[in-house]
């Protein structure tokens, strides 16, 4: 049984005031996510990612097609007991504290008071909300609300977690904490379905990914398979003479001086042997030969470009530099 299954899921919205016309936000989405997978749902702005998540949460109703979670119709009460959901840029009640909000949500699942308190304290600790948990939510920054949003999505120890842009609005520390949290969920065997613009994060935590463009799923599969194609090699050499730089470097795709007396040459997949020989013959020393893999961002841009004829536009966040994941 799939953790999440959609078959021909389609959503049309009516747009325009006087002259109503139909806009297809999601077109025949057929998808299956197995239990224990971390599925990254990627796509440019307006691709239909949030629409899909809302359909799975039954915040909107499909025009056609079906959506199932844990073998039951999406949106049924039984299913909602077993899933968690973080909406995009979540907003909560101004006049409640973070603690009260989580206790309220925990109460809706029918937990006993002591259990509620234990869950809430643990979750707020995990998302990095300290003493400010007793402050009204109207005083919270966007990043803090995002953390509370993640905590409330996990209040029932869900089997399947849906996260809509979970890294949005977070600083690097917050992003690392949330990434760790998702990796923890993966280790616990829970299914995570999340949409993201931040492809570096998606790459580090997804086992599977799907790319949605203009409402259509254009690519889906395992992330390691998506990134399997070799882009070439990076040859690092020391003591490369001026003459050799001219002769050998001219044949490389790119040559960069990376330190005093050291150069990195980016070379085509089939030319590594010849380059190594030529460098040694010129008197240079080989320091390293590293395979170059495509990043998820490169894969994403290629898929979007193939589909639309122009380059997709991941948010600036996707190019943000930050510490590598601790996993």
């Amino acid at each position, binding site marked *: 049984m799939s953790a999440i299954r959609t078959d021909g899921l389609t959503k049309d*919205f009516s747009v325009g005031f006087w002259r109503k016309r139909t806009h297809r936000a999601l077109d025949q989405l057929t998808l299956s996510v197995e239990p224990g997978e971390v599925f990254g749902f990627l796509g440019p702005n307006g691709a239909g990612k949030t629409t899909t998540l*809302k359909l799975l*949460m*039954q*915040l*909107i*109703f499909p025009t056609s097609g079906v959506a199932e979670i844990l073998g039951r119709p999406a949106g049924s*009460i039984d299913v*909602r*007991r077993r*899933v*968690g*959901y*973080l*909406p995009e*840029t*979540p*907003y*909560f*009640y*101004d*006049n*409640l504290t973070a603690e*009260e909000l989580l206790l*309220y*949500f925990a*109460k*809706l*699942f*029918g937990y006993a008071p002591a259990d509620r308190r234990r869950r809430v304290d643990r979750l707020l600790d995990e998302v990095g909300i300290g003493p400010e948990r007793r402050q*009204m939510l109207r005083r919270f920054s966007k990043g803090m609300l995002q953390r509370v*949003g993640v905590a*409330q*999505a996990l209040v*029932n120890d869900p089997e399947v977690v*849906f996260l809509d842009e979970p890294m949005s609005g977070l600083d690097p520390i917050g992003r690392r904490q949330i990434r760790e949290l998702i990796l923890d969920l993966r280790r616990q065997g829970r299914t995570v379905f999340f949409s993201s613009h931040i492809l570096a994060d998606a790459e580090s935590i997804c086992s599977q990914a799907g790319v949605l463009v203009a409402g259509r799923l254009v690519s889906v599969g395992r992330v390691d398979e998506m990134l399997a194609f070799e882009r070439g090699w990076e040859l690092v050499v020391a003591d490369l003479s001026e003459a050799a730089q001219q002769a050998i470097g001219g044949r490389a795709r790119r040559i960069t001086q990376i330190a005093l007396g050291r150069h990195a040459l980016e070379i085509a997949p089939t030319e590594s042997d010849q380059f190594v020989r030529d460098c040694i013959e010129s008197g240079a020393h080989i320091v390293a030969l590293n395979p170059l893999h495509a990043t998820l961002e490169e894969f994403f841009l290629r898929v979007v470009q193939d589909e639309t004829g122009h380059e997709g536009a991941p948010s600036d966040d996707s190019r943000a530099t930050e510490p590598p994941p601790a996993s």
Partner: protein
Amino acid sequence: MTASATGGLMASLRVVGHVAVHVFKESVRDRILYNLVIFAVVLIIASYLMGQMTAGQDVKIIKDLGLAATSLFGLFIAVFLGIGLVSKEVQRRSIYSLLAKPVTRLQFVLGKYAGLVLTLAVNLAVMIAAHYAVLGVMSWMESPEFRAGWEAPATDPAMLKAFFLIFVQLMLITAVALFFSTFTSAALSAALTIGLYVVGHFNADLRNFEAVVDSPAAAALARGFYYALPNLAPFDVKTAVVHAQPVPWGYMALTTAYGVAYVGALLLASIVIFSRRDFK
């Protein structure tokens, strides 16, 4: 009813109760509510000063102003908090997280409504207490001879009948606000609710519209509006209680039944609309 069905109903009502308590907790911390209640209480207390400026009519003035202030500020509370029940939740998207929990849309609507009615009840209690306190002080300050000249005692319990009908009317207005907020924006909900409140107080005129127009079609339309729109005039018994006229229990029961039936119809319509709504 089987044991499992009873258990299911109880669990369902528990969820409604949790939502209602949350609404109450949120609402009583709302600054708008504080301001309204404080202003209403100040106005009720100020009615004592206004009463002093009249000759022999002071107790009636205080009663009249107190009841009117309670009704007016109750209306503001019902409208401003009532529209926030759904439209603000949708606009601010706080509803997304809640409806992803094991809460049906029916439970959400009923819980929201019950929570606001609870908030209204508490606030009305505060205003009623202020009203009786002012009248109590006044009664205590006057001589027994002077008090003997009043049509009814200053702290006449019959005023509770007027307060009760104000409360039922506000329950109805809250249901109207909730109904509009299930499919329009907060601002439009407020405008429509206040508009309906005003129309509701002149609704009785529509009944005999044929007496002032020649067109049978216009008269029929007016008659249709009369039955469809809420008739709020019967909830206003302020003049009767202030002048110590009796308000029969039968009248109270019938008016309350009308209010409750109207609330039921509005809640049903709200649930039907809300259950099919897309949150874009």
